[in-house]
């Protein structure tokens, strides 16, 4: 079996739809990435290049390593072999570099991870003030701008605990955007939400995608994936098994396990 990446993951550029011309500039470049937890290998020879303003959807069965992979991109997880370059910066153990990358890469988590002891507004201004060294006035201005964009400016002075899940996740997106990131990572942003709140979050993400944000998104929302993805990456047991544009991916999946997976979820 493990005929490594027969589907061309090794040279992902060949997978790009010809109709679209990416900047040759790469937002993220992952080469030969391997990661182990003890003796257990979570990521196996991952190769993936993401162009600037490209939208990548990662999907695959539970435990396939999607979260682990996406968390490697902003170095919330370390890896043992391979290279990962983000916005031209190669990630090493160098803390300064890691912080530099994290400033440019926003992340939205499944469980929001808002700071419960701070108001919504403070959640959004803390990093711009402390990390980007903006003035408080400027940071507040930016925060209000993004809170308006996620359509909850009136909640600015509440605490996260007082908001619904969907609202909290929209705040989390606004908080990440306040840092003016070049790349956004989403790790199952809607899977902790009640069904009636999923759409309000997806709407924001669609809007973000239309504005040209580079996005890497783990999600099981296949309708959303079809709508915004440039490419869909299918992973299973730590490997990338297939990369394809959404139309091909859904109508004509090639790897047997992709077919099985789609058969189960669609």
């Amino acid at each position: 079996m493990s005929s490594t990446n027969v589907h061309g993951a090794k040279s992902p550029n060949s997978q790009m739809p010809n109709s679209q011309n990416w900047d040759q500039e790469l937002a993220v470049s992952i080469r030969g990435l391997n990661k182990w937890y003890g003796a257990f290998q979570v990521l196996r020879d991952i190769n993936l290049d993401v162009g600037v303003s490209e939208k990548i959807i990662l999907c695959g069965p539970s435990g396939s390593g999607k979260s682990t992979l996406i968390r490697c991109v902003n170095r919330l997880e370390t890896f043992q072999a391979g290279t990962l370059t983000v916005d031209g910066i190669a990630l090493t153990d160098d803390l300064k570099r890691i912080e530099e990358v994290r400033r440019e890469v926003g992340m939205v988590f499944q469980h929001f991870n808002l700071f419960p002891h701070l108001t919504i507004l403070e959640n959004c201004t803390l990093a711009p003030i402390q990390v980007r060294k903006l003035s408080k006035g400027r940071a507040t201005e930016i925060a209000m701008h993004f809170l308006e964009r996620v359509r909850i400016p009136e909640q600015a002075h509440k605490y996260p605990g007082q908001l619904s899940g969907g609202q909290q996740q929209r705040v989390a997106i606004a908080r990440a955007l306040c840092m003016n990131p070049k790349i956004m990572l989403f790790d199952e942003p809607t899977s902790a939400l009640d069904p009636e709140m999923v759409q309000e979050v997806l709407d924001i993400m669609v809007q973000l995608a239309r504005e040209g944000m580079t996005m890497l998104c783990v999600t099981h929302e296949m309708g959303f994936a079809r709508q915004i993805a440039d490419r869909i990456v299918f992973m299973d047991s730590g490997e990338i098994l297939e990369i394809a544009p959404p139309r091909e991916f859904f109508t004509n999946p090639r790897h047997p396990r992709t077919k099985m997976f789609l058969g189960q979820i669609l």
Partner: protein
Amino acid sequence: MASNSIAPGGTYLSHKNAPVLPPPKQKDAWWERLRRSFFGTPLSAFLTLLSSGLILWLTPDLLRFVLFDAVWNAPDGEACRVPGAGACWAFVWHKLPYFIFGSYPEHERWRVVVTLVLGALLLAWLLWPQKMGKHPDKPFAAALLFLVYPLVALVLLLGAPIFGLPMVDTDLWGGIFLSLVVAGVGIVVSMPLGIILALGRRSSLPVIALASTSFIEFVRGVPMITVLFMANFMLPLFLPETVHIDRLSRPLVGVALFASAYMAEVVRGGLQAVPKGQYEGSAALGFTTWQSLRLVILPQAIVHVIPGIVNTFIGLFKDTTLVAIVGIFDFLRTVETARLDPVWAGPTISATGYLFAALFYGTICFGMSRYSIGIERRLAERKKGRVA
């Protein structure tokens, strides 16, 4: 029909909303509820009777001693020595300056008063409950109390001839004010040092983790008295002979280190209660480790363990009485000394003195405990989303 629809297999569609009704009236009268809480079960009835009996038996004697037969006003111990006399409050009244200031020179005592009032004001400012979401001046108050105030207090109490304040040797310090100094130093040092030790214990650098852990475990494994003796007799051995450290600062070092070890464990508990997502959320925004600790992790960790922190302070405050064994005249020691004064000596003097000491320690510790409960309640409200 509708009546059949709830039968197994039936279907149902609502055509009108069910009426909204007020809750049924609470039919138990208050005495009924009282009866249930005090005489609800045979065991509960038995305990109620037993404790009422105890109260009835003890209260009259206690009231007689403390209030009705007490001697409130007397120039010396004569009136208190009368058979059947109760507490000799006159003794406490006469000795009050000594209880408060120890042997601090009389015409310099205003300095102590200023120090205490200043400290009380700063503390009130820091602890005053504030509307949620408005905390811009708390860090400032904390900085004043923890950084500036200790220096001001030191200058005021010890003296600084340059400012026209004559030196007052620490041998003359004593009483309530000295107890507060010992407790204050313990609190002011143990808070930051405890946080540093707690962070050190969780550090990924083995040397730091090992050093912090050994310190904490060593201090926690040794009685406070031992720490005091060690500070008293061993500290001078570690310092060059030219450095003279005075008799008071040695036990102060001991108390501070002792309290820090306990505080470290309390804070560590708080750090463990902060979810991993908070570390990740702040790291993902580009915070340095230190920034994320300072701005995100510690504020939450400390709030989690306010009851534990206050508990440590209460313990520390009571433990300050132990410094007496290395020759420091804390409040309890001044009571001890005063009761031997031949002018006042009498059968009720010791009981009065210790009762007064108990009242003093009890009131302060009770106050701390109530404050902590109040804070807990506010935080619980905040968690529920209600603005406190």
